[in-house]
């Protein structure tokens, strides 16, 4: 009888606390799973810099993180339609995007980098892209950066869903443009004959986008607090050094 009573009390307390638990829904984070070394899969395990930073943020917030992977072209639609809460895929802050979303504080500072096939002496930097075919990732901001160049009408920009590194190595395109950090990492770790061409040509800052709603703004503020705490503790730096050997989380 006594145990029955205790059980009932337990059940009641569980039911009563259910609304509180509902608050603790996992934070749904979208990523492509196809952007080495920020987000990629090895042996069925999702890994990368963005995975680690997001997990650290989750710990800071005391919330579980649920990663949702989809092709990059689908991610913003998933955010828009409320299926995910934010995107952790090195989303660059741009004027265009600021019209549609609100952003957290930047957590990665980087530059745009031209990459060519190894041994390409013709292209030594962004100014040599005149008359060339250049690959960029679909939905990324690098196409915009190229279009801002005064001679942009002479650049044949090709957008890729994935695989642009391979196509550059194969010579199907003359170069690709990506952020310096992941470009260097790809060249260092992967068996592709590629090289950096010249210095970076544009400062980019990456952050987490959120829907511009009350809930979105609240979440953005929480994430900003978590980011600041991680920065203070040096944890952002530690994660960055683990993946890149350098701190990319500061300007």
């Amino acid at each position, binding site marked *: 009888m006594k145990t029955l009573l205790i059980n009932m009390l337990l059940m009641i307390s569980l039911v009563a606390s259910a609304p509180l638990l509902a608050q603790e829904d996992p934070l749904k984070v*979208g990523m*492509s*799973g*196809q*952007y*080495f070394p920020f987000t*990629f*899969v*090895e*042996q*069925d395990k*999702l*890994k990368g810099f963005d995975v680690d930073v997001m997990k650290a943020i989750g710990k800071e917030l005391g919330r579980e993180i649920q990663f*949702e*992977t*989809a*092709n990059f*072209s*689908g991610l913003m*639609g*998933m955010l*828009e*339609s*409320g*299926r995910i809460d934010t995107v952790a895929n090195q989303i660059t802050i741009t004027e265009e995007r600021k019209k549609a979303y609100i952003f957290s504080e930047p957590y990665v500072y980087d530059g745009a980098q031209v990459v060519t096939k190894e041994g390409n002496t013709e292209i030594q930097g962004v100014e040599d892209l005149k008359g060339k075919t250049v690959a960029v990732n679909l939905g990324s901001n690098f196409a915009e950066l190229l279009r801002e160049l005064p001679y942009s009408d002479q650049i044949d920009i090709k957008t890729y869903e*994935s*695989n642009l*590194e*391979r196509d550059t190595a194969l010579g199907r395109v003359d170069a690709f443009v990506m952020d310096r950090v992941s470009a260097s990492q*790809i060249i260092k770790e*992967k*068996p*592709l*004959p590629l090289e950096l061409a010249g210095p970076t040509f544009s400062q980019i800052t990456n952050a987490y986008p959120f829907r511009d709603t009350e809930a979105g703004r609240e979440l953005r503020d929480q994430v900003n607090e978590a980011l600041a705490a991680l920065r203070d503790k040096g944890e952002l730096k530690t994660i960055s050094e683990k993946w890149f050997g350098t701190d990319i989380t500061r300007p």
Partner: protein
Amino acid sequence: MDVLNVEYMVGLIPILLGYLPLTLQLAGTGMVLALILACLFAVVRVLRIPVLNQLTIVFISFFRGTPLLVQLFLFYYGLPQLVSALTVIDGITATIMGLTMHFSAYMAESIRAAIVGVDRSQTEAALSIGMTNGQMMRRIVLPQATRVALPTLMNYFIDMIKATSLAFTLGVTELMGATQKEAAGSFLYFEAFIVAAVIYWIVVEMLSKLQHYLEIRLNKAYSR
């Protein structure tokens, strides 16, 4: 670097096979639902039921006339924009919806053709001995139409299995999505995609065997 990394490929097989059940679930569910829908459409079209017939014609025209990927985007991203409650449609549901509607449009036409193709004398004979329309359909027309429609329907099923590879754009990690992510991690694109291709191929080959067996069974009455 241009030597095939066989060790990587072998290691990838069990990982990718783990995503095959979802691929088959998407295609299997889509096929069952599409068959039901297609049969309804075909009957409506053959019997020329007013209003429904016109609606079916528009439906078939739209879903045959637009790419599957466009339809998937409409279901998944478009609908919630109009009615926010429709966010409950998850990637798997949206994929099955898309596959069902897209392929039912094609299948309705081949089922209709199979029904219309049954010789006129057969239906006349059935009616002359006093069968009702329903009896005639069940006992005389549909068994013969099934035999004619089977090869094309199997064709659509095979196509549907391969069409599930679009689901990763809606965040559903099926066989193709898993392959893309693994390839992005290793940069061994050829190795990863050849493993995926062979898995698709073997599945389709097994279905072709099934089709062959079914055809023999359905042809029994015609062999002498």
